[in-house]
């Protein structure tokens, strides 16, 4: 066999490998923050352009530079927890407050921000108190709100609804009726990214709150396992079952994903009528289907349920996102300056432009500058009026519970678990 390529390949790869080692060493030393820079780690998605802009603004005036790193959404929490106690940990990182940072606080990794706030009270007073408190643990502040509040809304395709003589449903019965009408027209009534599992969870969060109010979940999270077996819990599951059995989600929702854009496209192309999703849905549609986002995308609150005990104007979702700071950082002062930008006019305007809703006290000044002022106003009024804003269950529970929770949520929807099976699975979750 002719093999003259072989010695050359060997020589070539040795040379390459040596070059690589040198290159990698060079790269390593420059990235290890030799002369004054700190890293900011953010959830990677369509909102990143604002974070980039804020970092650029900061770097224009600051001697200590900020460096933005992103991790694509699905892997964010995983990667964060794997690196947070290593040398490669960022200085500042994005999180959801509450349960998402509790283990890090417990391990003593996070910097309490109270000293910073004492020096600069606006770091606290410029945010809506209910939002700021989402990252207060054991009486200490561990996060400054960033991005915006993200209530879960029921989105719809306006044209599909109009063509079928429907309007955005106000009550549960309206929704059931819409499901029936759309199903008869061979349109999937409600798009659901069941393959991702967490979009399914949103239905439970709303249903439990409508039927029982926020106390049931709070009890369960506090360790009271009987909460899951209460009559209200059964009633909520009955309602969900009613919806599933009515064919609201079609038959193949477990093969559809939100994260790969599948469910998003179903709504945009008019193959489905509704989708329940966080307010970031707007910027997702804006990115994937700009024309539809502008003219065709409708939205409403989750419908009221007449026999429910909960306050019918409660909302669920992500209260807010936060920046937390690691204790080990060398540049707390520079970071304090960086965090101040999170309530600057520039930040608020930029967030508004991509459909996010910051929760700073100056937000109201800029509602008119939003990409879709009506959408921003709608959310702002909703959040302001809501007696309770339930944090997503998988963020409220410890990370170690989320996989089992998602599995149970999916299995009840596809009929593998009945109500009792679901309740047992929820009772088995670790709570602290």
């Amino acid at each position, binding site marked *: *066999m002719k093999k003259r390529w072989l010695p050359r390949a060997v020589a070539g790869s040795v040379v390459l490998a040596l070059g690589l080692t040198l290159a990698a060493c060079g790269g390593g030393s420059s990235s290890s923050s030799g002369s004054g820079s700190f890293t900011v780690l953010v959830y990677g998605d369509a909102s990143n352009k604002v974070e980039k802009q804020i970092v650029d603004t900061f770097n224009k005036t600051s001697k200590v530079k900020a460096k933005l790193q992103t991790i694509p959404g699905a892997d964010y929490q*995983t990667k964060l*927890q*794997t690196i*947070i*106690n290593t040398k490669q940990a960022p200085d500042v990182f994005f999180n959801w407050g509450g349960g998402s940072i509790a*283990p*890090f606080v*417990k*391990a003593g*990794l996070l910097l309490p921000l109270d000293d910073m706030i004492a020096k600069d009270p606006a770091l606290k007073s410029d945010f809506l108190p209910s939002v700021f408190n989402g990252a207060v643990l054991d009486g200490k502040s561990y996060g400054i709100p960033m991005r915006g509040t993200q209530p879960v809304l029921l989105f719809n395709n306006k044209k599909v609804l109009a063509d079928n003589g429907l309007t955005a449903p106000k009550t549960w019965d309206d929704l059931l009726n819409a499901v029936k009408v759309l199903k008869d027209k061979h349109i999937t009534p409600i798009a659901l990214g*069941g*393959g991702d*599992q967490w979009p399914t969870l949103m239905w439970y969060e709303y249903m439990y709150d409508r039927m029982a109010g926020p106390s049931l979940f709070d009890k369960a999270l506090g360790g009271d396992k009987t909460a899951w077996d209460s009559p209200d819990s059964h009633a909520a599951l009955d309602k969900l079952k009613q919806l599933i059995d009515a064919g609201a989600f*079609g*038959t*193949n*929702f*477990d*093969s*559809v994903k939100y994260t*790969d854009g*599948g469910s998003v*496209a*179903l709504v945009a192309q008019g*193959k489905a009528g509704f989708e329940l999703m966080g307010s970031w849905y707007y910027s997702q549609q804006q990115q994937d289907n700009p024309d539809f986002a502008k003219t065709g995308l409708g939205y409403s609150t989750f419908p009221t349920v007449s026999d429910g005990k909960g306050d019918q104007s409660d909302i669920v979702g992500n209260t807010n996102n936060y920046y937390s700071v690691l204790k080990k950082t060398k540049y707390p002062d520079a970071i304090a300056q960086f965090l101040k930008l999170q309530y600057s006019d520039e930040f608020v305007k930029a967030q508004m432009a991509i459909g996010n809703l910051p929760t700073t006290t100056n937000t109201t000044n800029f509602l008119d500058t939003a990409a879709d002022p009506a959408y921003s106003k709608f959310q702002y009024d909703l959040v302001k009026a809501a007696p309770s804003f339930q944090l997503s269950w998988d963020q409220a529970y410890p*990370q*170690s519970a*989320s*996989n*089992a929770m998602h*599995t149970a949520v*999916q*299995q009840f929807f*596809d009929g*593998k678990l009945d109500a009792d099976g679901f309740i047992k699975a929820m009772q088995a979750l670790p709570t602290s």
Partner: protein
Amino acid sequence: MTTTDSPRVEKRRPVPRAGAGRPGRRSGASVARPGLAWAAPATLFFTLFAVVPLIMVAVLSFAEWDGVDALSFTGVDNWKTLFHDHVMLQSIWLTLLTTVLGVVVQTPLSILLGVWAAGKQRNRAVLSAIYFIPLLLSATAISILWRALLDPNFGVPSQARWLFGDGNLFGHQSTAIGVLIFVGAWQYTPFHTLIYQGATRAIPQVLYQAAAIDGAGRVRQFWSITLPQLRTTMVTSMILMVVGGMTVFDTVLILTQGGPGTDTTTTPYYSYVKGFKDFQFGYASAIALILVVVATIISLVIVKFSGYDKMRSSSEGL
């Protein structure tokens, strides 16, 4: 595996197999032999990056560690949990099932294709070139390709409702496993075809000529000559399939994420989920160790079947 009937070896010169009748050790004294230093770098490297981690897996399986708090030893807690964890027990069953189904689907396919491709006709060479393309794609790429192709609303199922119905392939256990088996076969059959093609070409033509004189037809020849001659290759190929099948990870992660529910959560994937999603690194290590034990048993079987060990001892006297 290294049989003397390989055509390449024959071209070089026939190699006496066993050391029988050779002067053996006595003459060896005059031959300069490589010292241990020749083996040391590879051994050290391998020890550091494979054996040490393996020992650490064993140690970690008796500990609790979430990557944030300090590691704490918890005795046999993980192991106790493990034997009552129905997802874990189901995962072993699923791993074995997918592995066996993989072998059952791929073996006949790759034998038939391999024997067919061994023919010298021009069209076969051209077609073989196409058949082998999946070999060039990574498991990641293949899984992504099929996930996109099998999307119920925007993929092939949307244009072939008569075959796929509502296209809910990832929503039922049976179809989800079916997808994993199919994609696995798509990915690996070409490789095994290649092995069988090589082995078939090495079968001496005289055997067929003799059979033809006896009036044996094509089918008879296949059963009485080709298949028996391929026996060692079959062992090798099946063992590769088994070891590969037991450790499938990329495909599950990208195609089904272990779902629906936990219906396709195989052992390697479950270990990954427990470690890097639930942050129970200790428990994940216990699961991983089970995987190693099963794989080791299979590897010992490899050693026995392939006769590597015997080869070693028979060449000892050289």
